[in-house]
């Protein structure tokens, strides 16, 4: 039972990080970022390169390695986010049909990106050194490994920090303003282009964090971003695009559903169950779970 809850929480926090990024990007600049999987993988490979460099220098574990892995993953993904923005967002942003064009441009980046990873890093999965050590805490009949615990704690801390920052800082106010009314944001002096790039970098950093921590169990491969992208899309749709509390709740539901399905039915049924959940939620609550929590007129 405990193992089930822990694995649900790990999945929920990892997918939550990716989904929040997709959700922010959609709500603030109106771009459904299908390149989020590419951004995810970029973080993983950045951390892999960092680990390689340190290993060549003779350092194989310790805080320099652990913190460096997390930071390099976040930086790598943030840079990939800015890269996607400079190709798919800045040149297209004020053209007609930006939403469709942005969707296609990010899809293209995603497909080309996967092939590029394949060319540069090869098809083999790359392992990362353990970030949180290899120990395990026994609780009753089950137990939780350090890396699971670390993933949950770091994801929660990071999400809380980002949410606090969005609530209290001026840049956060600008982002929230832009999510709600782009015209209003423009007339108070918020630059859609600057703020949009900022959103892409932050979404990227959150995704990169998830990438490094998921790589602890699943390794980094050219296509390792596909699953997080799909589930991230499911969660951000089910949560109501742009709603942080909705996304967090949806992540918890999806994480639990995936853990339960994998345990009692079969791993291969997971996509069916997840898509079933999102269809059900959207049939009854078209604005997603976030629509239940907010009651305002447009």
């Amino acid at each position, binding site marked *: 039972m405990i193992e089930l809850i822990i694995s649900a929480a790990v999945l929920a926090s990892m997918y939550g990080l990716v989904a929040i990024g997709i959700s922010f990007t959609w709500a603030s600049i109106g771009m459904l970022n299908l390149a989020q999987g590419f951004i995810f993988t970029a973080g993983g490979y950045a951390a892999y390169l960092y680990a390689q460099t340190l290993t060549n220098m003779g350092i194989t574990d310790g805080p320099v390695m652990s913190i460096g892995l997390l930071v390099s993953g976040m930086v790598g993904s943030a840079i990939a986010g800015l890269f996607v923005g400079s190709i798919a967002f800045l040149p297209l942003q004020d053209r007609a049909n930006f939403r469709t064009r942005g969707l296609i441009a990010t899809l293209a980046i995603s497909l080309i990106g996967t092939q590029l990873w394949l060319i540069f890093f090869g098809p083999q999965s790359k392992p990362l050194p353990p970030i949180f050590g290899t120990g395990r805490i026994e609780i009753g009949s089950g137990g939780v490994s350090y890396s699971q615990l670390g993933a949950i704690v770091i994801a929660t801390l990071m999400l809380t920090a980002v949410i606090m920052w969005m609530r209290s800082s001026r840049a956060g*106010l*600008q982002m929230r303003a832009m999510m*709600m009314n782009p015209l*209003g*944001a423009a*007339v108070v002096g918020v630059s*859609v282009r600057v703020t949009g790039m900022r959103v892409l970098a932050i979404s990227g950093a959150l995704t990169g964090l998830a990438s490094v921590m998921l790589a602890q169990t699943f390794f980094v491969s050219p296509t390792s971003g596909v699953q997080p992208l799909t589930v991230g899309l499911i969660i951000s749709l089910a949560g109501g695009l742009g709603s942080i509390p909705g996304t967090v709740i949806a992540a918890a539901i999806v994480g639990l559903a995936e853990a339960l399905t994998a345990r009692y039915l079969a791993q291969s049924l997971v996509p069916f169950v997840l898509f079933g959940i999102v269809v059900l939620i959207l049939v009854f609550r078209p604005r997603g779970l976030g629509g239940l929590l907010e009651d*305002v*007129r447009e």
Partner: protein
Amino acid sequence: MSILQLTGVSAGYGPMRVLHDLDLTIEPGERVGLVGLNGHGKTTLLSTIVGLTGWQDGSIVFEGKEIGGRRTHGVGRKTPAIVRSGIALAPQGDAIFPGLSVKDNLDSGAYTSSSWRSRKRRRDSVISVFPPLGKLLKQTAGTLSGGERRMVSVGRALMSDSTLYLVDEPSLGLAPKISMGLVAALCDIDIGEGAMIIAEQNLPLLEGRVDRMLGMHAGEIKLDVGEALGDVPPAAGGMH
């Protein structure tokens, strides 16, 4: 030096041309009423000044700096820079942020770093103009009534450190009594060496309250009355 000078300004959306070779000068300390029927270009004129129309052409000089020029696309790309240089717009339809509190809505108007630092004082002075907002600061803006939303939208424009204030149709969609109070409050604000343009189709609301009235017709300025229209002899009002 005049605050704002428009020379030969045309603007529109796609194939449609709304403003035709329009000239306009606004002097410091002036409160100007822009009147005219629906669909004659009042909103487009205010949008053109901050670069929000589909395309535009002609010179717009604000405090000696050219902010206009020819532009065929890039709606709103220059808007943030123009707004930060000192032009505040309270747009038609309010464009408030429905999920933010009234306080956050107002604070978002204090964009420049100097006005952000003094946002508390600025908020207090907005509340002194619109007293009902004082009690609503914590409320979510999306739950407000139409009149309150308008106050938030205009108040947000007042939060900025601007020299030129553009207010688009403050009375639109409001009960007569509420719109009267709102316009009266707008006209009592001390603008100092700045200027304010109020676009309004309900002409009597502005009568006797503004320094100058401009009448817009079919995308051109047809009427420029130096004093408030209240002083114009009835004959000019079409009594014959």
